[in-house]
């Protein structure tokens, strides 16, 4: 397993190296034909038949033997409600042929796959279609895009699109949609003056298009329309990881302009307007002027589902988290058709989906995907009862699922997890209460917490003995690995921990009547030290860990309390608030590659518990307390974001990993390099053994649109 991760990351570094090489040598030959640089649409199918068969010749009687599209769509075509298949998918040269993942059989269309509803970040990636896609062998594959060219100086990316591709409502997908997204949704979301995100949340991806100039100042990229099938991204300086950034962070670098033009603010006189007003750059006709009020009213006209309190909400929900809303055209294999309040979210096939299998049959095979709303407690039992087909779990639940495999008529598959820790504890370094904050920032305090936990017991109780006791650190074999880091502070030693705490100023050596240490001096003078830890909704393992920690830390004279959230979104949102929670236990955290995806370990976002508000340093200019190591983390993060060369990227990610090693902000207890999927046996062509992480889009990486049902 470790070898696999290592190989994968090595490959990634090499690929990045290629870009760096390109950038560094302006004379390097850059192929001008599309789809030949690195990741290309049809690259996977050089050995398969040309997909031309499903083009105009499709009507040939010999081809009628196997259906090329779902019966439900064929019926609509017959009724004249839908244009014929060849008019719905890209041209024969440009259609995406799914070569690698196509099943060997010729499956029939139809059926429903059910899984639980674990929030939008579960079903979003499940059917996501990015412009480019990161593969687990480290390459970047063109997905929505057909391919790209990179100019000799490494500054201009020319992106080619697929001819004849359509949005799910049948309107053509063109370069206009990409250029519009960048200039009128993403850029206008960021306030020119302050650099802060003003409304739609799309702007948070702006950073990925910025590169530093000679003076170290970040300069945005220019995105320009060339023709309907071509647009360019022009950087100020070369950025070796631009495509990866698009893969990982700005997966949807496009949106249906026609649909958005009357609900996105487009008002050059608005105070936070920072977009370009040169309408020519998006191609086609100009845009109407839209104020916030008009945008809200227009949205409501489209559907009563779009009832938002203010434009900020509209921008966030429709502009950024659009896949939650029925009616918004997408390029995805399935789209939601009902309201978010419904218990079961229903996703139905996109009749204009632009991918075909090796036989030229339109994908997906499955008509409908349903995400059934249920408490996390019920996942296992509903998988066993056959009411859902797919359930994901980790070591803690493994025995139950595995032992019920036969009863539940499903198969348990093993996937790879690149976590730095699978069971850990994070203390918020920016907690609003300064007395607690000082304590959390004290390295001796964290040292004490780390060695006062019995990792073997945690492994037995939470990991069923299937994990490895380890500190929070990149696993051996990955690029960010530091020798000895996973073994730091893992020896169980309560006496030493108590000694460490005794040496900390501002807290008592003696215990109070309840057996707890108290603060000495300050606002909380004489009060017991009580740490509230956030847990996930109905995650028994989180509650178990807090209970265990409460026991371990009671031995140190510290009181631990669980702060339970029934809703995982609510928990995340408490994270985002930065300073309102003390700490959290985590189930899985880390980075699959700091260089490409530093979010969980660096200070570039405020969504990891330990970094809290300091994650927003780049926009809020916060000054962390000296001597806490946080300044180094922030600095290294800045260096990473503004790096123009591969060596700089590598150096910056090393600094981040080192900062974690030096400071142990996140206390790791145990780590497992596996996660598991239980998939009902009626679902076929499920590809297991993938690296299960956000960067590769979790289950989306298995390409669910190639699954099929056979009862």
């Amino acid at each position, binding site marked *: 397993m470790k070898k696999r991760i290592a190989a994968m990351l090595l490959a990634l570094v090499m690929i990045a190296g290629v870009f760096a090489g390109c950038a560094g040598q302006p004379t390097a030959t850059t192929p001008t034909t599309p789809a030949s640089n690195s990741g290309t649409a049809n690259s996977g199918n050089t050995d398969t038949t040309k997909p031309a068969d499903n083009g105009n010749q499709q009507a040939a009687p010999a081809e009628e033997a196997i259906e090329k599209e779902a019966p439900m769509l064929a019926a609509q075509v017959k009724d004249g409600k839908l244009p014929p298949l060849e008019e719905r998918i890209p041209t024969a040269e440009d259609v995406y042929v799914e070569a690698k993942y196509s099943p060997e059989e010729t499956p029939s269309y139809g059926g429903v796959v059910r899984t639980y509803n674990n929030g939008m970040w579960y079903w979003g990636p499940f059917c996501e279609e990015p412009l480019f896609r990161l593969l687990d062998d480290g390459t970047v594959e063109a997905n929505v895009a057909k391919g790209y060219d990179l100019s000799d100086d490494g500054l201009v990316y020319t992106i080619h699109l697929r001819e004849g591709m359509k949005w799910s409502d049948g309107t053509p997908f063109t370069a206009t949609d990409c250029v519009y997204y960048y200039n009128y949704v993403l850029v206008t979301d960021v306030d020119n003056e302050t650099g802060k995100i003003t409304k739609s949340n799309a702007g948070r991806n702006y950073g990925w298009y910025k590169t530093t100039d000679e003076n170290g100042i970040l300069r945005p990229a220019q995105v320009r329309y060339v023709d309907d099938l071509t647009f360019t991204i022009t950087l100020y300086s070369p950025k070796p990881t631009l495509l990866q950034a698009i893969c990982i962070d700005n997966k949807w670098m496009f949106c249906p302009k026609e649909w958005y033009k009357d609900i996105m603010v487009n008002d050059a006189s608005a105070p936070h307007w920072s977009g370009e007003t040169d309408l020519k750059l998006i191609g086609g006709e100009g845009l109407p002027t839209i104020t916030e009020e008009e945008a809200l009213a227009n949205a409501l006209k489209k559907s009563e589902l779009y009832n938002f309190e203010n434009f900020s909400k509209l921008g966030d929900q429709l502009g950024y988290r659009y896949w939650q809303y029925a009616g918004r055209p997408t390029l995805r294999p399935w789209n939601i058709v009902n309201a978010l309040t419904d218990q079961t979210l229903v996703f139905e096939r996109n009749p204009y989906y632009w991918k075909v299998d090796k036989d030229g049959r339109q994908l997906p095979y499955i008509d409908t995907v349903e995400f059934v709303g249920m408490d996390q*407690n*019920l996942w*296992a*039992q509903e998988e*066993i*009862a056959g009411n859902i087909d797919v359930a994901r779990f980790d*070591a803690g639940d*493994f*025995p*139950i699922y*595995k*032992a*019920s495999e036969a009863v539940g008529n499903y198969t348990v598959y093993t996937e790879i997890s690149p976590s730095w820790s699978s069971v850990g504890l994070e203390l918020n370094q920016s907690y609003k209460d300064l007395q607690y904050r000082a304590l959390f920032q004290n390295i001796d305090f964290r040292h004490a917490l780390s060695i006062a936990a*019995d990792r*073997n*017991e*945690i492994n*037995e*109780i939470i990991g*069923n*003995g*299937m994990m490895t006791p380890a500190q929070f650190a990149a696993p051996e074999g990955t690029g960010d690995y530091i020798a000895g880091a996973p073994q730091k502070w893992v020896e169980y030693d309560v006496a030493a921990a108590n000694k460490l705490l005794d040496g900390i100023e501002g807290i008592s050596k003696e215990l109070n009547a*309840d057996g707890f240490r108290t603060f000495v001096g300050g606002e909380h003078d004489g009060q017991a030290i*009580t740490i*509230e830890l956030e847990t996930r909704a109905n995650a*028994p393992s989180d*509650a*178990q860990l807090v*209970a*265990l920690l*409460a*026991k371990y830390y*009671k031995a140190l004279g510290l*009181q631990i*309390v*669980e*702060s*339970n959230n029934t809703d995982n979104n609510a928990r995340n949102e408490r994270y985002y608030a930065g300073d309102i929670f003390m700490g959290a236990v985590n189930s899985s955290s880390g980075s699959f590659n700091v260089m490409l995806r530093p979010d969980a370990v660096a200070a570039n976002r405020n969504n990891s518990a330990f970094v809290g508000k300091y994650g927003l340093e780049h926009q809020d200019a916060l000054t962390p307390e000296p001597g806490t190591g946080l300044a180094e983390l922030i600095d290294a993060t800045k260096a990473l974001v503004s790096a123009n060369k591969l060596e700089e990227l590598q150096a910056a990610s090393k600094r981040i990993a080192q900062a974690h090693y030096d400071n142990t902000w996140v206390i790791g207890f145990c780590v497992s390099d596996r996660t598991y999927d239980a998939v009902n046996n009626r679902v076929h062509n499920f590809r297991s053994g993938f690296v299960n992480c956000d960067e590769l889009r979790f289950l989306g990486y298995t390409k669910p649109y190639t699954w099929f049902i056979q009862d």
Partner: protein
Amino acid sequence: MEMKDKTKKTPVRKSQEKKSDKYYYASQWQLMGRKFRKHKLAMISAFVLMIFYLIAILGNFIAPQGTEQYDGKYVNCAPTPVHLFHEGKFVGPFVYGLKMERDPVTYMAHFAEDTEKICRLRFFTEGDEGGEYKWFGLIPSNIHLFKAEDGKVFLFGTDNMGRDLFSRVVLGAQISLFIPVAGMLMTLVLGLAIGSLAGYFGGWVDTVIQRIIEVVRSFPQVPLWMALSAAIPKTMKPAQVFMLMTVILSLVSWPGLARVVRSKFISVKKEDFIMAARISGAPADKLITRHMIPSFLSYIIVDMTMAIPGLIIGETTLSFLGLGLRSPATSWGVLLQETNKLETIMFYNWKLIPMIFVFLSVLAFNFMGDGLRDAADPYK
């Protein structure tokens, strides 16, 4: 044989005579006691409840483990049977040592008896470290009723943290059985005070109290309990949570009682003996506490007993939902949190044991209430 019978008959007849004499001279309470004793089911229930409460009071002594004691080595361990004979030889009560085996495929832990190792049960013995407690919150002690020598005895198995379920059931009884009683007492005080005020004074006092009662009664019980319990801060100590839960439970249930008391007052007010007391100049407080309340107290007690099962279920439900007490503090509802899944029942069915105790205590209170109700009207 006949002789014996004859000799026995006479005293019986005598006692019958005495009994009937006693019957006519007996006070109302004595009559009630007599009638209650006749109600077999009620008597059994009262006995069961007595044992439960005794166990709860002596909980720390009876339970082999404290609430925060657990051992990661024994997670989800099935109940360990207590044996008397080893290979046909009597050795007294003992358990075998436990050997944990993980299934090589499913990694599920099984605890097999290690018949090589005999762990005798020791009684009235020093408990393990961490089992310290204070008798009635005063005298520190670590003597426990029983303990397996060099081994573990889990009469009811363990939970997902390796905690002894038997201990937790026993300690949980302290919460689950006493919160309802405390709640009931508080309800009694509130209900009597407010109900008698309204009933005695009448007029605007009555009207205002009536409105308040109506408002409080308009709140659906369970959701109101939920809303109030959700507001309990998480950092509170179990003792404080206990108090608050009591207040919350009684806050919802006093209006019912107050209403009954009020109507009783109104009807009693017209009775002759009250009139007589009033005429002879008894002050209002005396009239209420000495004459009026005692005249219908028995009904009130019956009412209250019948209300306890509802409170037990209420507390259990709230704890089950995670709105009442939290782990490691324990109550029957907290213990039942783990049963909210099919898998638990499939693989760890012993975790349903606390349910039996909820069931039995509710049933016992119901039967006892029934008996008391019959007894409350001894002249019928």
